[in-house]
């Protein structure tokens, strides 16, 4: 005969009285530290210190040491000149332009590029983006992420931000997919599965796709516009919270509580860290490399066939009028469908040619973040969401791009910088 609910609880009581020993437990130093990291008054400064350490390590490891220290020299001083000297064809040859160097106009003359950002070739810009910048950024990100994860800090961060995220219909756990997405949006979207309701999953995936740049993109942005990183993240964070608040109000459904296990702090083991680093970085490269190279080919072909100029002419008035960015931004926006890191790389080329002002670069970077998820993330969203939700996500994307992009332009005009 099945037991009633009361009878079940009585039985649980009896079993626990016979099996569990109760007594006063002295708090250890580890317990006291664990408490400090979840209380807002002490936990927030600690979180600031942890995030500071995270990004500081990221910038110096990926930017100063590998990309600026070795990769820029390797690609610009050795790889590019070597390819320019041995690859058949030369400037004006379409295949050479596609694979090595499209060149650029200086004083009415087509001249060869002197750095991989400007070259726009599959073997130059494409390879530089993947192996010169992104690989090190992703490696640094996942190393720090694995350490925080294994040390037991991430669940505490989730508890800490729980109150804030409840205001937008999510709970603390949302920090895990958000943080993961800062490495790559694909595992970030996958990590939304523990969220209980369709509403929470839809909201989380939409916010990740729009407002959370991946590690690859961050790496390139850090390399191109380091002085703007604070403003870029602030703009995206405001969008994340503001748009989350609106979505919470208009999307039907519930946002129930989620009980999370908060493990004790522990020392990460080297074996686990290395294993996680290998799995995540290799998966990332398997996803990223084909898309970056494909993106380089498509953008190159569009330049060669004149399709890019046509699109720039068609979309130019909209881009200039509404968003305040030049028509040349069409190329990175198209590349952004495939890989956002490649798109920001193309933006870097335009920047080096002096086509854009600082504020236009800032607006373009934000637009690239919010206008569409990369193809790999979109494919995963197609799998994770139903047709109605996908349409909802796309409608949100379109609305957000126009509202937020226009708003940034308006702020720029009011400040006199646009």
């Amino acid at each position, binding site marked *: 005969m099945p037991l009633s609910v009361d009878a079940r609880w009585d039985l649980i009581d009896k079993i626990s009285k016979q099996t569990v020993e109760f007594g006063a437990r002295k*708090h*250890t*130093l580890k*317990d*006291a*530290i664990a*408490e*400090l*990291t979840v209380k807002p008054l*002490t936990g927030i*400064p*600690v979180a*600031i*210190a*942890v995030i*500071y*350490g995270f*990004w*500081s*390590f990221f910038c*110096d*490891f990926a930017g*100063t*040491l590998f990309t*600026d*220290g*070795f990769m820029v*020299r390797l690609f610009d001083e050795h790889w590019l000149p070597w390819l320019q000297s041995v690859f058949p064809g030369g400037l004006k040859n379409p295949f050479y332009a596609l694979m090595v160097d499209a060149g650029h106009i200086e004083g009415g003359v087509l001249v060869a590029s002197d750095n991989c950002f400007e070259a726009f070739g599959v073997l130059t810009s494409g390879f530089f983006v993947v192996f010169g910048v992104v690989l090190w950024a992703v490696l640094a990100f996942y190393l720090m992420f694995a350490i925080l994860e294994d040390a037991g800090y991430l669940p505490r961060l989730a508890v800490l931000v729980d109150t804030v995220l409840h205001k937008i219909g999510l709970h603390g756990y949302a920090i895990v997919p958000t943080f993961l997405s800062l490495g790559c949006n694909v595992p970030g979207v996958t990590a939304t599965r523990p969220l209980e309701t369709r509403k929470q999953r839809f909201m989380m995936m939409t916010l990740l796709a729009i407002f959370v740049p991946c590690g690859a993109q961050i790496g390139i942005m850090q390399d191109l516009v*380091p*002085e703007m*990183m*604070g403003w870029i993240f602030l703009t995206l964070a405001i969008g994340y919270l503001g748009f989350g608040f609106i979505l919470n109000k208009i999307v039907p459904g519930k946002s129930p509580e989620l009980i999370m296990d908060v493990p004790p702090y522990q020392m990460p083991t080297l074996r686990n860290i290395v294993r996680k680093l290998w799995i995540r970085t290799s998966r990332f490269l398997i996803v990223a490399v084909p898309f970056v190279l494909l993106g380089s080919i498509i953008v190159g072909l569009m330049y060669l066939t004149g399709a890019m100029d046509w699109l720039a002419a068609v979309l130019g008035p909209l881009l200039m009028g509404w968003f305040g960015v030049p028509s040349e931004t069409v190329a990175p926006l198209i590349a952004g469908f495939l890989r956002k890191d490649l798109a920001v790389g193309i933006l870097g080329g335009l920047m080096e040619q002096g086509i854009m002002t600082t504020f236009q670069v800032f607006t373009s970077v934000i637009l690239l973040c919010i206008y569409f998820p990369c193809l790999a993330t979109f494919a995963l969203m197609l799998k994770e969401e139903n047709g109605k939700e996908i349409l909802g996500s796309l409608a949100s994307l379109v609305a957000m791009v126009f509202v937020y992009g226009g708003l940034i332009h308006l702020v720029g005009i009011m400040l006199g910088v646009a």
Partner: protein
Amino acid sequence: MKEGEEKFGQIYFAVLGVVALAFGVAELIASAGEGFTWGILDSSGASDPMFLPWKAIILLAAGLFYLSSVNNFAEVHQLAKAVMASIMIWIVAGMAIWARIASSIPGEETWFNNLEGFLASYAPPYCPEMFLLLFSLVIVYYILKEE
């Protein structure tokens, strides 16, 4: 923890708290305008202006943590505050040292830095958190004692 050790801890971390707080204020001022370089102490933030305000907030918080830990220092929750403050200083100082290591390895004209250039990267002046790092290590004694 013995009474003498507790007394020493209270005085030591109160002083360290005041110094951390003062460095935090100095870095906050430096992030708003021009900082200062005094002998081997550099609070100009010239090397990393983007991170300077955050560093200042962390040092301020660490100073407050130290100061709030001194009352009843031997109690585990109070001691935990001083430990947390030290960990925050270790993070900031660790990253300052890591930044020097990262910039000291590649050379300007060659792939790797020469010995002279490498050593020059570690020359003074040093940022405030690197001085605090040295003095914050005293907490290790109290951690070992507690465990």
